[in-house]
């Protein structure tokens, strides 16, 4: 149910000024490992102040792409630019970006303070400034009092905050985060996500986060790049990705979806009519599909109303029988079998604490949804 808390997501952070020049530019970057194309011709602009998420299934090349920006992988072809400057030949230790590693990679022989100071010492900063910046950063990440501990004397959450402090204290142009929260439990993960957003705003930095957790990407990111098989398949804001997926694959990867196959019968500027679907003839949002095209209509479960009464003719409607109900607390998922056996999923918020006449398994129900609820996908 990722679409819920998106309304307040600041689309504007993408770049207040659309003419702003990108901070990071991947220019047709490709990287192959013995037989595997990990990154396949990725071109992508990331703007100053963005919280950009690279999202995709395991092995799709997210980490590899991030590592070309950090300098740990050299692209086989293409270029990586920072502020218009070609980074391709710049070794990692001279790039003004910092990375928070998935394993944290804290130096086991150094204390918390020693770990955080490491990067500042490399810059040859004066002792007092190092001390001041460490104190500031440890306060910001609520690590005071732990300065003298070694990493093995910290909890997982503390270690993760030290890793974050160590990367942030250098005030990088871009902070790279490779699955920074994967090792935390769900509650701590949620808290840390908001902490990350707070830090980004507070420090005015640009963050690029790699994750395979779509909920995490939706929560923290101002823009998401969805990757599959080394390619970027869609780059958009979280709500666009959710509401306007550009392919069956993205629709299916992000959240739950009903994908209903059919053929475009007719189209106007506002409605595309798709016929011969398992749910009959469906009116969906306008698209650039042409009459006769084979398409799929993507329909999010929470956009579907479930009820016993026959819905008004202005809505799409189909009748079926409830095959299964999944109770999720805030939501219930209803699996409804249509006449020809096709199963559609509908989600309904459990608003009332006690439902007067609950829909139960075996009931005949009507599913209905607005004409603009379905998205027509041509690929």
């Amino acid at each position: 149910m990722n679409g819920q808390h998106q309304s307040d997501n600041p689309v504007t952070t993408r770049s207040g000024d659309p003419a702003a020049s990108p901070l990071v530019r991947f220019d047709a970057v490709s990287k192959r490992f013995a037989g595997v194309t990990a990154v396949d011709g990725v071109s992508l602009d990331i703007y100053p102040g963005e919280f950009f998420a690279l999202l995709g299934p395991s092995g799709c090349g997210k980490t590899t792409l991030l590592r070309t920006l950090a300098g740990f992988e050299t692209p086989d072809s293409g270029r990586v630019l920072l502020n218009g400057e070609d980074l391709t030949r710049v070794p990692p230790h001279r790039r003004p970006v910092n990375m928070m590693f998935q394993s944290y990679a804290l130096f086991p022989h150094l204390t918390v303070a020693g770990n955080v100071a490491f990067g500042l010492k490399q810059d040859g900063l004066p002792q007092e400034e190092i001390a001041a910046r460490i104190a500031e950063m440890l306060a910001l990440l609520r690590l005071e009092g732990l300065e003298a501990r070694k990493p093995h004397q910290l909890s997982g959450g503390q270690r993760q905050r030290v890793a974050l402090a160590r990367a942030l204290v250098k005030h990088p142009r871009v902070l790279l985060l490779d699955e920074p929260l994967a090792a935390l439990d769900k509650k701590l993960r949620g808290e840390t996500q908001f902490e990350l957003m707070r830090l980004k705003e507070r420090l005015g930095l640009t963050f690029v986060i790699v994750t395979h957790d779509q909920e995490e990407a939706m929560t923290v990111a101002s823009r998401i790049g969805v990757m599959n098989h080394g390619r970027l398949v869609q780059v958009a804001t979280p709500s666009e990705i959710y509401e306007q997926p550009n392919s069956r694959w993205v629709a299916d990867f992000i959240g739950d979806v009903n994908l209903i196959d059919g053929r475009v019968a007719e189209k106007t500027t506002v409605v595309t009519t798709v016929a011969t679907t398992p749910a009959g003839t469906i009116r969906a949002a306008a698209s650039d599909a042409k009459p006769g095209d084979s398409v799929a209509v993507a329909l999010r479960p929470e956009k579907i109303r479930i009820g016993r009464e026959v819905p008004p003719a202005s809505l799409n409607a189909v009748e079926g029988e409830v095959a299964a109900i999944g109770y999720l607390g805030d939501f219930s998922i209803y699996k409804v079998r249509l006449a020809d056996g096709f199963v559609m999923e509908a989600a309904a918020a459990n608003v009332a604490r006690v439902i007067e006449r609950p829909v139960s398994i075996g009931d005949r129900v009507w599913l209905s949804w607005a004409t603009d609820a379905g998205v027509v996908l041509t690929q």
Partner: protein
Amino acid sequence: MSARSHSKRSWGQRLVILIPYLWLAAFFLVPFLIVFKISLSQFATAQPPYLPQFDLDEGLAGLKEFFSELSSANYARLVSDWLYLSSYGRSLAIAFVSTAMLLALGLPIAYAMARAPRRWQGVLFLLIVLPFWTSFLIRVYAWMTILQRDGLLNQALLAIGIVDAPPVWISTDAAIFIGIVYTYLPFMVLPIYATLERMDETLLEAAADLGCPRWKAFWLVTVPLALPGAIAGSILCFIPIVGEFVIPDLLGGSGTMMIGQTLWLEFFNNRDWPAASAVAVVLLALLIVPLILFQHVQARRLEQGG
């Protein structure tokens, strides 16, 4: 029933803890006490060649007499005789220098091994321990022929033209160092390799990410992390090198002896068991310090691992 099985188990546990102590008592403490006792005796032309002898038949009076005849004269001799002091000094100096050489050579070798591709590491490991398949003595004899005047080393040096006349190797300190470094290298490389092999590669990436060039990361990250291994290797080498006998005897010259040679001379040539025993006891006392150091490092490493 349960009480019995409980006491049984705790007896078993006690036995397990006891075994190493029994072992140490039987094969270290008891022999040491015997050696210590002999070191307090005097040389005599007898069988065994020292006095006093402990006679049980004479009872308490005999025991009293036995103790009154013990003396620390041998230790006084060790301190006053230049032969012993210089032997100790030479042994410690050679052990110190060769441990430093082993460290300088072993650290890069271990580092290279740990950084080599995974599939090569097994082979490299095997190459390091391969010399153990051949008897130590045979390998030292081999060095004798290599270091001879017309041996392989000089042939090679002459062939590349580094030298015009064959330098003398055998019976010099250089030969001793070559022999020691060659023999003890695995004992230095393996502990360091063991610590480096476990090192997380991403630590070096993290160092680079934080602005640290590779050569500097070696000093700031790799070396500190290899330190426990380096200390273990140094102690594993230093202690036996101090007491080394075979290598200086076969490869070294006839000048000042290492303490192992002095001990051998006292024991077999002079048949002065008490003096030889005193030499051994002092040697042990000298080595206890690095041994305790080693213990300390080991304990700290276990603590960190846990």
